């Protein structure tokens, strides 16, 4: 078993704020960029003043947001559009599909409150289908940065990315990813080496759960590799297959329904290329019916390191 000696992780930070704070100065240097808001409250007076005419609050109208962004992109602009993940991927989906993805326009859909980040606000504000929905759209790149530093990197890399991009962001401070492997859109990060099982995570808490679970498993003699599969489309199938080579089990951990998201993408890729048993940890097939913050809900629904480690142990014992 080998492990990577990781530097101390950065302090928890808010990915949506990291995005905002990287975008605002870029507005002043890249004339293509626009920031289109739907009254999300993410941008304060100082941000708006700094952005000048590049910032527009279009009101609570997500279809209109996507349509205007498409029209601007047809004219050579690169709009960053702002709404919650649930609204971007459900309410405004048809405009995203027809007006943005179909003509492959470089619109950046910055979707906050991803997964269970809205916490006690409930299922109307949870986004647990967004990754499944977005990754089925041809031309759409789908990324879930696992921390603030990765989010800033995604914003920078998006400036050279053709076609549309969906970025799932959080709401409150979330853990930082240990290690110093650079974030590159489309390339999975190998956070830990291991040969028995592969833990694949997506998003701040799932990636943290994977690394913690790998530590727990290591204590009981199970060697677990950890992949941060931050890009769901296009999926880094090569890294996945390389990591899974020789492993008897792959476990996916995500803040998403168990169908269609990371687990679905991993199963599709492995079933076609390199069949291996896959366990999917994610939101059970139900709408949340309990009150609590994001961490409480993750714990309540079993999207945790302990559950991940236990699932691996049980599966290996059953073999």
């Amino acid at each position, binding site marked *: 078993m080998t492990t990577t000696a990781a530097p101390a992780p950065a302090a928890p930070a808010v990915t949506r704020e990291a995005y905002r704070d990287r975008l605002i100065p870029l507005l002043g240097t890249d004339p293509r960029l626009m920031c289109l808001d739907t009254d999300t409250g993410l941008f304060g007076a100082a941000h708006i003043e700094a952005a000048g005419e590049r910032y527009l609050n279009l009101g609570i109208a997500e*279809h209109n947001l996507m349509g205007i962004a498409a029209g601007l992109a047809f004219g050579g602009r690169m709009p960053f559009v702002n709404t919650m993940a649930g609204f971007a991927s459900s309410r405004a989906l048809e405009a995203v599909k027809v007006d943005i993805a179909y*003509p492959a326009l470089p619109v950046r859909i910055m979707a906050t409150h991803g997964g269970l980040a809205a916490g006690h606000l409930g299922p109307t504000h949870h986004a647990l289908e967004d990754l499944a929905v977005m990754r089925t759209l041809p031309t759409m790149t789908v990324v879930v940065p696992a921390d603030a530093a990765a989010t800033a990197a995604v914003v920078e890399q998006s400036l050279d990315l053709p076609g549309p991009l969906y970025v799932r962001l959080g709401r409150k401070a979330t853990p930082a990813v240990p290690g110093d492997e650079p974030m590159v859109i489309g390339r999975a990060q190998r956070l830990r080496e291991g040969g028995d099982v592969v833990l694949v995570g997506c998003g701040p808490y799932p990636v943290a759960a994977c690394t913690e679970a790998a530590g727990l498993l290591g204590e009981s003699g199970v060697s677990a590799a950890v992949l941060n599969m931050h890009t769901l489309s296009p999926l880094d199938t090569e890294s996945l297959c390389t990591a899974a080579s020789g492993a008897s089990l792959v476990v996916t951990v995500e803040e998403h329904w168990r169908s269609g998201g990371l687990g679905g993408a991993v199963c599709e890729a492995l079933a076609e290329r390199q069949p291996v048993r896959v366990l999917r940890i994610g939101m059970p097939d139900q709408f949340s019916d309990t009150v609590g913050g994001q961490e409480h809900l993750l714990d309540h629904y079993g999207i945790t390191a302990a559950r991940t480690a236990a699932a691996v142990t049980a599966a290996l014992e059953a073999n």
Partner: protein
Amino acid sequence: MTAAGPVELRERATRVREHIADMCAGPEGGHLGGAYSAADIMTALYFDVMNVDPARPDAPERDRFVLSKGHAAVGLYATLAERGFLPVDELASYGRPGSRLMGHPVRAVPGVEAATGSLGHGLALGCGFALGARLDGRDSRTFVLMGDGELQEGSVWEAAIGAASLGLDRLVAVVDRNSLQLTGPTDSIAAMEPLADRWRGFGWAVQEADGHDLAALVRALGTAPWEPGRPSVLIARTVKGRGLPFLEGRTACHYVTFSARNHAKARAVLGRSRKEDTG
């Protein structure tokens, strides 16, 4: 701009209708009724009002046209062909395997600015075009043609609020008020009136015109914006299927696949119109 005279405009509109009839005699048929109600509007725009150049379909300073009622694709293809954006002969490929002329407009066709077909999308797109032009300091205008049934889509009104809030006065919407939708009279399905007041209430400058009076269309659309700081909407009163008396105003003209006999009948009617056009 071609500054076509009234006789030429009338001839062009008849030819556009002939092309549409021919496409609707193809294997798949087409949305003839809404294409005919909009044929004079598109003729006025492409042969007089709009600054477009078939030789330079991507010229940055061009005016933009979005066919938000994308099911009238046969009308757009016919108009673009008649205007020189694509060969008239190519229209014969409509509905046939391998053709680039899909049943709803696609950007592969020269002159098509945006793929449309799902109703309620064009006005927000038009807002984006108009906003981009304003930010770039371009003078171009953006024209968005919507159906009246389409106004039942809520997204139209999101965009209507947006355009007025942004003060997009180079944005010009046209409502093809043919008062019929797929299964019957528009106003029997959803209350549409008072339509002009509704648009005024949303902050738009509003005019109404006979949507088959080419001179009136040119006058209204050519002089937009009508009020500084406000987007404009022309409510064009039209007749679905206008030009073929045996189909005009009938629900059945929404989608037509002509038999050889009815195609010949349509062509004969349009041929007589042509003679009248040229006096």
